Structures are given as C-alpha cells and as structure tokens.
C-alpha cells in the first residue's frame, strides 16, 4: 500500500495486508502522535489495510512557540508585559539557554 507521511512530506510503500497499528510500528511512529486516514476516512488501529489502499499517516503534534512555552514569560496569557501572576522572582526575559544545565 502507498502510505503518505508528513514532516517531511513523502510517500513509502508498505506490504499489506497489515493492521494500522502494525504499519505505525513498522514506521516507528507512536499512535498517540498520529492519525491513520484511509482515503478520506479516519480509521482505528485494529483496521486491516490492504495493498490497494491509499493511506495517510498524519502527525498531530504542533507548537513550540513562546505562547505556550514553559519558562517563557507570559505563557500565552499576558499582554504588553508578562501577566503578574506569571512573573518569576528573578528579572526579565531570559533566553531558552537559561534552562540548560
């Protein structure tokens, strides 16, 4: 079967029939971070995929911005400056490297 993957975008060929969870395992992908879509239908991990199926494995993880970032002042809530309840006891904006050992 032809399996379409993202990040980076590519297609791979996997020999069927196989259950969706076996395809994920073969590609070393965790279920919790992906959806398996056959044609345009979402399927569960026990679904059997055949050689003539067109499958998309779609990653679901996003983020990384300061909007949500730990240790980055504001955490998506403050404006203009940091919301006071999010202020650390030490001073001003610290780059991410601050948290490295």
């Amino acid at each position: 079967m032809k399996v379409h993957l993202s990040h980076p975008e590519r297609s791979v060929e996997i020999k069927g029939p196989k259950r969706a969870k076996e395809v994920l395992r073969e590609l070393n992908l965790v279920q919790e971070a992906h959806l398996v879509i056959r044609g345009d239908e979402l399927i569960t991990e026990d679904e059997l995929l055949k050689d003539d199926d067109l499958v998309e494995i779609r990653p679901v993880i996003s983020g990384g911005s300061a909007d949500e970032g730990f240790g980055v002042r504001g955490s998506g809530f403050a404006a203009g400056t940091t919301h006071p309840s999010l202020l650390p006891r030490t001073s001003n904006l610290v780059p991410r490297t601050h948290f490295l050992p």
Partner: protein
Amino acid sequence: MNCTKCKTKAVIDLPRHNAAFCTPCFTTYVHEQVAYAIKHQRMFGPDDRILVAVSGGKDSLALWDILLKRGYKADALYVDLGIPGYSAKSRAKVERFADTVARPYGATLQIHTVQEEEGAGIKELSNLVHRPTCATCGTIKRYQFNKAAVEQEYDVMATGHNLDDEASRLLGNVLHWQDEYLDKQSPILPASVEGFAKKVKPLYRLSERELAAYAVLNKIDYIVEECPMAKGSKMLLYKEVLNRLETESPGTKHRFYWGFLEKQTQTQPAATSMTEKDRALLHPCNTCGQPTTGEICSYCKMMARAKVSK
C-alpha cells in the same frame, strides 16, 4: 472495533478512556469535554462575548467551531506574522473557515498584519531585537490579542491550548524546577486588573490527537504543516516524550496535568488575593498605557529596540 456508546463501527479509539467512538458519538464526546471545562472552571457564560485567538491550526479552528456550534458569541483574531511560505497558507485556512463556517453564525474575523502594524515581518523583528523568533512571536501575539480583547470590550479571550500543550509545559517546568510557574498553570487567568483581559483555555481536557480527529471528522480544513520556526523546540521534545509514555501507559498525560490542577486547587490562594497581588505589581506602560510591571512594557521595549536597530 465498535463504538463504546452506540455499537456501530468506530473511527477512533481512545486508549486513555478505554473507549472507541463513531463520528457522531466522538463529536458529542469532544463537545461534552469542552462544556465541562467551561462550566467547571467558570470560564464564561452564554451571553459573554468571546475573542478566540486563531492560527489556522487544528486546535484554534476546532475551538472556534465548537464555541459557535454550542451557541456562544465568538469572534476571532488572527495575527499574520509574515513567515515566508507559512503565514500566507495559515491565513488562507483561517479566512476560508471564517467565510464558510463562522459567518453564517454572525461571527467575524479580525486580522492583524505584523508587517503592516509593526513595520517588519517576525523574522526581521527577531533579528533586530536579537531574540528567538518564538519569543518575539509570543510577545507580539500576547500584546495584540489582549489589546484587541480589552479595546473591543470582549468579556474573555480564548486560546486553543490543549492537554498536550499544558502537560508538556508542566513537564518542562518540573524538569527545570521552575516552581515560580507551577502554581500559575491554570486553564483560566482572571482579568485581575484593568487592561488585562480574562484568558481561558477551553480545550485543556482534550489531547492533540483528539482535536486533530475532531477537525478531520468535521471537515475543518487546517494547516497540517508545522511552523518552520518551531523546529527543534524543547516543547516538541517534551510532547514526544509524553506521547511515548502515553502509548505505553494510556492516561499518563491527563493524570499528570489534571492531578496537578487538583492539587493546585487545594493549595492555591484565593483569586482575590491573586488580584490584590497583581494590583500591587502593575501600573500603565509609559508608552502604550497597557499594564506592566516595569516603566515600559516588553512589547514597547521590543518595538523601540527594533526602530533603533533599523
């Protein structure tokens, strides 16, 4: 695999709930989780005006969709950061959703273009002020979303932060013992002083996979592509680690974050004392008038540095 509720064919399995759902039952599940979050955390009422921060991604568009379908008065604001090859695509997704889904509900979309308003795109701005792009993005977004919510008198501002966002942020804070943040990681932040909008996260009970599934099943056309600026971020690493744990031990993420919230409610001081503390710390920014702990807020400082460097 069959639906746990109606026994028809399931389209998604949720190991953390030991359940599987068909499309209608899954949509109901998602809506119920959001309804519970809104009620349990006292986020807003049926007559409140809500400003949703949208990005074109699955979470924020799903949030806007859910709020509109549940009868809330929800408008949205999109901040166009001018990221080459990315912002144009995400903006198009938001505009399409606004035209096809939101407009029939009478909801409106506002767009703030960084290139026009701040005079440069996000990459150029972050280079000018020598700060990471994600940090610059966060400062601009927080400022503009709050400004819009306050100036246009919205009762509350809602963001699409989900369970994975909150659990990974908590993990980051715990790993680095950023304990000054630990007691602030709540799904609501009150409008404690004039100039700060109330902020809420109605999706904190739903995982990224569940929200992506909701978007697919409800034909929400979102940007699947990852923001090129986020590559290599620690947040993504923490999410990956948590998802490995979740796969081996379903329920880990919600037990981690919800358990933390439960403990927090037992120890956190009352909201009134938090408001008093905020009032003591804040005064208007000398430049723009928005609340700040310094003389000039971080957004105005950043814009001043950008002008000098140009």
